[in-house]
C-alpha cells in the first residue's frame, strides 16, 4: 500500500531531492548562479545547489540544479483517467466485433489541419504498429481507411460518411498556437453538425493531449503519449458495447 503523502526520492525516503535544468537570459558569472539559486528557491527547492553552469553565447547561462523540494504530493488529490475498459487481445477484439456487428468495424483515420506528422496515426493504424503491438490494419474484423496527412475537416467528414465509419481517429502532433486543440474542436463540431446523433465515434490522439481533455475537445475519447494500438482497439470494442 502506497502512503498518501509522498516526496521525491533521491537516495533516502523523504529527502525530496530533484534535479532541474534551465537557461536564464543572464551573462555567465556569479550573478547568474545567484539568479538560478533564487529561481530554484522560488520553485520550492531549498536548499538548492547550482551544480553546473555554463555560458550559451554572450547573454545566456545554462544551469543544472539539485536540491530538496519542500512540496508534498497528496496522492488522494491526483486525478487521472483510469482505463475504463479491459485490454483485449486482437483475437478477442475480432470475435466480439464479428458477433455483435456481424460485419467489419470501419475506422477512418488521418491527421487533420496542416499537420503533416503521420507518425502517431501510422503507429496506431499501420500494420507495422507500435511498441511491439500490430496496428489496427492487422485486425481481421476492422476495416481501416488511413487518409494520411493534412486532411481537411470537410474531407474527413465526407469520407467518414461514404465509408459509413463507426469510428474516426484523428492524430495531432503540431501544437503551435494550440493548433491541435482548435483543429480537433473544429472536427467534432463539423461531425455534430453534419451527422448529429448518427455521427461516428470520435477519437483524438497525440503526444500533447491529455485524456481529461475529451469534453473540451468535443470528442468521445482522447489518447495521449505512449498509447498502443491494442488500447485503441480495446476501447473501440468497449464503446460499441455501450452503444449497442
Amino acid at each position, binding site marked *: 500500500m502506497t502512503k498518501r503523502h509522498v516526496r521525491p526520492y533521491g537516495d533516502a525516503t523523504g529527502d525530496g531531492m530533484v534535479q532541474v535544468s534551465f537557461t536564464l537570459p543572464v551573462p555567465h558569472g556569479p550573478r547568474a548562479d545567484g539568479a538560478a539559486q533564487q529561481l530554484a528557491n522560488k520553485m520550492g527547492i531549498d536548499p538548492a545547489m547550482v551544480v553546473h553552469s555554463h555560458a550559451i553565447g554572450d547573454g545566456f547561462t545554462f544551469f543544472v540544479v539539485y536540491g530538496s523540494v519542500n512540496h508534498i504530493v497528496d496522492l488522494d488529490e491526483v486525478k487521472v483517467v483510469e482505463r475504463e475498459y479491459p485490454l483485449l487481445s486482437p483475437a478477442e477484439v475480432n470475435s466480439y466485433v464479428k458477433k455483435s456487428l456481424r460485419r467489419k468495424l470501419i475506422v477512418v483515420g488521418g491527421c487533420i489541419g496542416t499537420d503533416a506528422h*503521420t507518425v502517431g496515426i501510422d503507429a496506431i493504424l499501420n500494420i*507495422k504498429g507500435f511498441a511491439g503491438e500490430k496496428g489496427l490494419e492487422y485486425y481481421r474484423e476492422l476495416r481501416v481507411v488511413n487518409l494520411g496527412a*493534412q486532411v481537411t475537416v470537410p474531407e474527413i467528414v465526407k469520407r467518414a460518411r461514404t465509408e459509413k465509419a463507426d469510428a474516426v481517429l484523428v492524430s495531432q502532433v503540431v501544437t503551435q498556437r494550440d493548433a491541435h486543440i482548435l483543429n480537433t474542436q473544429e472536427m467534432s463540431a463539423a461531425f455534430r453538425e453534419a451527422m448529429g446523433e448518427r455521427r461516428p465515434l470520435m477519437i483524438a490522439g497525440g503526444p500533447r493531449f491529455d485524456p481529461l481533455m475529451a469534453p473540451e475537445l468535443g470528442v468521445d475519447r482522447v489518447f495521449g503519449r505512449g498509447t498502443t494500438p491494442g488500447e485503441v482497439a480495446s476501447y473501440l470494442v468497449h464503446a460499441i458495447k455501450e452503444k449497442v
Partner: protein
Amino acid sequence: MSLLDLDPKVVATARRLAAKAAEPVVDIAKAHTTVAVERATLRLAGITGADTTHRAGDIPWVNRVVDTVREHCGLEHGAVLPVFDALARNDIGTLTELAEATAAGQIQYTVPTGAAARRAAKAGRVAIARGLRQVDRNRAQRDKLITKIGDPPQRPWIYLIVATGDIDEDVVQAASAARAGADIIAVIRSTGQSLLDYVPEGATHHGFAGTYATQENFRIMRAAMDEVSKEVGRYIRVTNYASGLCMPEIAVLGGLERLDMMLNDCMYGILFRDINPIRTFVDQRFSRAMHARAGIIINTGEDNYLTTADAVEAAHTVTVSQLLNEHFAHEAGLPNELLGLGHAFEINPDLPESFRMELAHALLARELFPEAPLKWMPPTKHMTGDVFRGHLLDGFFNLAGVLTGQSILLVGMMTEAVVTPWLSDRDLAVANVRYVLNAAGNLSEDFVPARDGYIVKRAHQVLGEAVDLLDRIVDDGLLNAIGDGTFGLMKRPQDKGKGTDGVVSKADGYVNPAIEMLETGATK
C-alpha cells in the same frame, strides 16, 4: 580504402538495375510538363510579386499567368510561347505588367505559330538567359567566398535546424547556431507548405512549426549568414526544401538567392505527402537540373523511410532509394559532389548489436557512394521523452558518423519528439558533437572491421537484398512498386495524389528554353 570488400560486380549490377528501373520514369518525366515547371520557367524569366488584391490572399503573379494561359490555350506547348507572344502583341514591357493586365482580364493567350512563334521563343530565351546568368553569378560568388573565407575545418559538416516561424527570429537563432559551431543552417518550412501549389511572397513572420520558404526569406537569411560567415571565419551554408508541389520554383529561387543546399528527394513527395508520382518525377527532374546549374548540394530523404518502416528489415530499401536518387540526379546533370544522399541512425536501440548494424549500414552507404557528401540523420523514431537516454543515443549517432566518414551530420536533439529545440538543447547537442569529434575524430584511421566479421557480413547482406529488390522493381516497374508500398510501407498509385491535375502531356511543338539551356549549359 575499402573496408567492406564489396564485390564490384554486385555494385555494378545494383547500378545497372537502378538505371533500368528509372528509365521508363525518365521517359515519362521528359514527355510531360507541370504547372510548377512552367511557373519556374517564368520565374527565371523575371516575373516576381503577387496579386495582393485577390480575395483568397496574395496569389503570386506567376500563378495568375500560368493558370490563365492554361485556361486559354493549354500548357501542352509550354507557357513561354503564349506568354512572350502576348507580351509582343500587347506591346507590354515586363512580365509583371503582363501579369497585372492578365488579372484585369485584358490578355487573351494563344499558341503562336510560324514567325510569331519563333519571335516568342527567342524573346523567352533572352529573358530566361538573364535569370540563368544571375544563377551563374551566384555560383561564382559562392566559390569566391569559400576561397576567401574558407570551408569548415572538419568533416562531417555540422548541420543545424532553425524553425521559429518568423524569418527575423530565424536570423537570430541561425547566427547563434553558427557562432556555436554550425556549418550549415536549415530553415524548416512551415507545416503544410509542401502542399501549397504556389510559393508565398515576401518576408514572413507567421509560420507553423517552421518558416515559409519565400524568395525574400531566402535573401534575408543568405545576407545574414554572409555577415556571420565573415565573423566566424568559415562559409555558413544555407539550406531549404525543394520538395512538395513547388519543387521547380523553389529550386529556381534557391539559385537566384544563392542558397547552398536543398532537400530534394526523388520519391519523398510521393510517399510522405501523397503527391502524384508523375508530378513528382517531372518536377524533380527540372529542379535537379536547376540545382546542378546553381551548384547546390541536394540532400535526399532516405531517413524518412526508416521512421515508418523498420530500420533493420527495411535497411535495403534505403540503399535502393539511394541508388535511384543517384541515377535520377546524374540523369538531371548533378555530379557526385553535389549528391548528399541521406541515411539515418534509426535502429531500435533495444535490439542486440544495434550499433554494429548502424555501422554496417553507414559504411555501406559510404563505400557505395565514395564521392558523395553523404547526409547522416540522427535518431528520431526511438527518441522518447527520456532526454537522458536520447542524449546518449545521439552520442552514439555522432560516433557512428565520425567513424564511418559521413560528410554532413544533422545534429540530433535530446528533446526530439518533445519540443522544438530550445537554446540549451542546441547548445548541449553541439557540445555532444564537439566531444565526439575531439575525442574520436580520427578514430576511422584505426577502425578496420574484421574480414567476414559481423559488420562486413551485414553490409553484404543489405546490398544483396537491395539488388534483389531492384530486380523485382525492374520486373514490376518502379511506379507499380511505389503503388504497392515498397518504400516506407506507403502505397501510392500513379494516377492519384495531390497535384495530379497540374500534369500536362507535352505537345510536339513544346518549347521551354530553360530546359534546353539547363541541358546544354548555354548562357544566351
